[in-house]
């Protein structure tokens, strides 16, 4: 209710404005020192406020002791009425006249009273100065420490759940497990096929253009074979599943958190790590190796397409060279990586879902960060696995 607003909305009404004013404001002549101001029709902020001119004129004639603001058939109204009455009050105060608002509807009177009770009190603006560097560093450290502790706690809960599962005492619903398996198994085949086929194709094409210069085209089969089997099929599938299934886990659990379903679960004494995380983690941990195996086949096909169409090998030649390049260890490393990625993606999704805030926006954030964490952890895990294999000589 700032007076500057009034200047803008009231200022200089045109001819039509005057006509409109008369419909909404009637200012009677002074009677026994009293002027009646009737408010009528709709008073909403989307139309300009009537001019204060008539009221001012009535006051200017002098001898006015009281302004009686009344309801002369007030239609729809909002805070514009209050702004107007405040302005009348201010004007009347200058001339030493009183304003009587007793005849106005109750809603307007209470709001006016509320506005008056707030007047004169300074508006408290919470201005937070930027804390000094040391404080910020400290805050970050505390925040990071809490995050680490929280992550460890989650890891511990999941480990406890796995232990109970191993002993056959885990509390979860088999139908949840089967549903999760369906979601992250067969449902993912089309997208996994497309991506791995294209990755195999690209790998083959890049290798072909380089190796051709040395007359070593046949090694395209080796490169595509080892690349896909040992690492790329698992990584590409893992990233796909992070975007597809990890995100959906985070959204599912996040929504359950918003609906207080997770609280309800805990009130029944069932740890969410067991009931919700365990089946999802097992589903992805089981299905990822299978998906990766399938992805290997599709990826090799992609490479073979390059070998046959661009380098003019026969399918038999290409397949034989691939077969010679690979051994079971390579496949083992690939499958193992896939299982690890599956567990990581599921954990990232579930963790973010369970730690989700209590709003729809928070579910969105949880989903996004589940995907990011899933992908980052895949790459980091890949680095560790490669390093480990290097040390072990496999």
């Amino acid at each position, binding site marked *: 209710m700032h007076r500057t607003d009034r200047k803008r909305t009231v200022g200089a009404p045109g001819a039509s404005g005057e006509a409109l004013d008369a419909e909404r404001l009637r200012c009677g002549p002074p009677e026994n020192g009293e002027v009646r101001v009737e408010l009528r029709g709709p008073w909403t902020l989307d139309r300009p406020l009537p001019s204060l001119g008539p009221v001012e004129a009535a006051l200017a004639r002098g001898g006015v002791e009281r302004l009686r603001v009344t309801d002369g058939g007030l239609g729809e109204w909002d805070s514009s009425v209050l702004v107007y009455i405040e302005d009348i009050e201010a004007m009347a105060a200058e001339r030493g006249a009183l304003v009587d608002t007793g005849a106005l509807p109750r809603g307007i009177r209470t709001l006016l*009273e509320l506005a008056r009770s707030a007047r004169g009190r300074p508006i408290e603006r919470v201005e937070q100065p930027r804390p000094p560097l040391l404080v910020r560093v400290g805050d970050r450290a505390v925040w990071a420490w809490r995050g680490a502790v929280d992550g460890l706690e989650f890891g511990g809960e999941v480990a406890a759940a796995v232990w109970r599962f191993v002993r056959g005492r885990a509390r979860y619903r088999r139908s949840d497990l089967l549903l999760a398996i369906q979601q992250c198994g067969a449902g993912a085949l089309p997208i996994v096929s497309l991506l791995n086929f294209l990755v195999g194709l690209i790998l083959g094409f890049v290798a072909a253009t380089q190796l051709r210069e040395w007359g070593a085209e046949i090694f395209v089969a080796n490169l595509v074979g080892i690349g896909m089997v040992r690492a790329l099929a698992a990584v590409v599938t893992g990233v796909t599943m992070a975007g597809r299934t990890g995100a959906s886990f985070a959204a599912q659990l996040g929504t359950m958190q918003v609906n207080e*379903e997770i609280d309800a679960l805990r009130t029944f004494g069932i740890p969410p790590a067991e009931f919700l995380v365990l089946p999802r983690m097992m589903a992805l941990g089981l299905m990822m190796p299978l998906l990766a195996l399938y992805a290997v086949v599709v990826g090799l096909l992609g490479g073979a397409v390059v070998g046959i169409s661009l380098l003019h090998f026969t399918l038999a030649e290409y397949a034989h060279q691939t077969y010679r390049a690979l051994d079971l260890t390579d496949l083992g490393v690939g499958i193992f990586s896939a299982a690890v990625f599956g567990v990581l993606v599921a954990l990232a999704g579930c963790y973010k879902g369970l730690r989700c805030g209590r709003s729809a926006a928070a579910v969105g954030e949880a989903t996004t960060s589940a995907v990011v964490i899933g992908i980052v952890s895949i790459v980091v895990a890949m680095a560790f696995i490669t390093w480990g294999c290097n040390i072990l000589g496999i």
Partner: protein
Amino acid sequence: MNQAGGPTKISIRGLHKAFGAKKVLQGVDLEVPEGSSTVIMGGSGAGKSVLLKHVIGLLRPDAGEVLVDGGDIGHLHEGDLNTVRRQFGMSFQEGALFDSMSVFDNIAFPLRRHSGLDPDGVAERVRECLRIVNLHDVEGKMPAELSGGMRRRVGFARAIALKPRILLFDEPTTGLDPVMTALIADTIRALTEDETVTALTITHDLQAAYAIADRIAMIFQGRIVFCGPPEAFQTNTDPVVEQFRTSNPIGPWTEAEL
């Protein structure tokens, strides 16, 4: 009414809780006698739900203690907490039904986990609970097919299914029509007729509170400002209580927000 007689079932002492910079509870003290029906009243965002969630250990206090039967549950290990929670039943604001399960499975969930009843016994208890909240022919429906009020009543039925000793109800009557509100209020009263059953209900509905409570507590700015029988509540002259009771738009509640 035995607010004088019963031993203390739940005792909250100096409970503090903040979320970031927002201090929600600032030293709540409340004693809940066994067998009583206590209603916690307060405006939206006054910290009623947060308080209730501390009683069942869903939230951990920043400071202070929550004693149930004399044992502090604020610092219990999650595993031990799960054992303590067996004597609790809690209903949530929006029902908090498991979306992936039918109404029947929702109510049967705690029964199958903890009651030791055979499938027939479970089915019978589920139907009994649905009858109590006056719901018919909804057993096979999914929560998404129900209205908000029906979901809340199913949540209520699920909370009482195990016949727990301590009942926590978070806004059980909000969004219900007057008849259903009276029904739920009567049910809560009837449950606490049993001297060993203690109920703690949150509401901001005065009529419901009078119908449910033998003790009313009012929470304001993170503290309990009044606690006593409904008659004392109705005659209390504390400006906080008075404004709330008379639905006055002017007073401490609104000043605090200006």
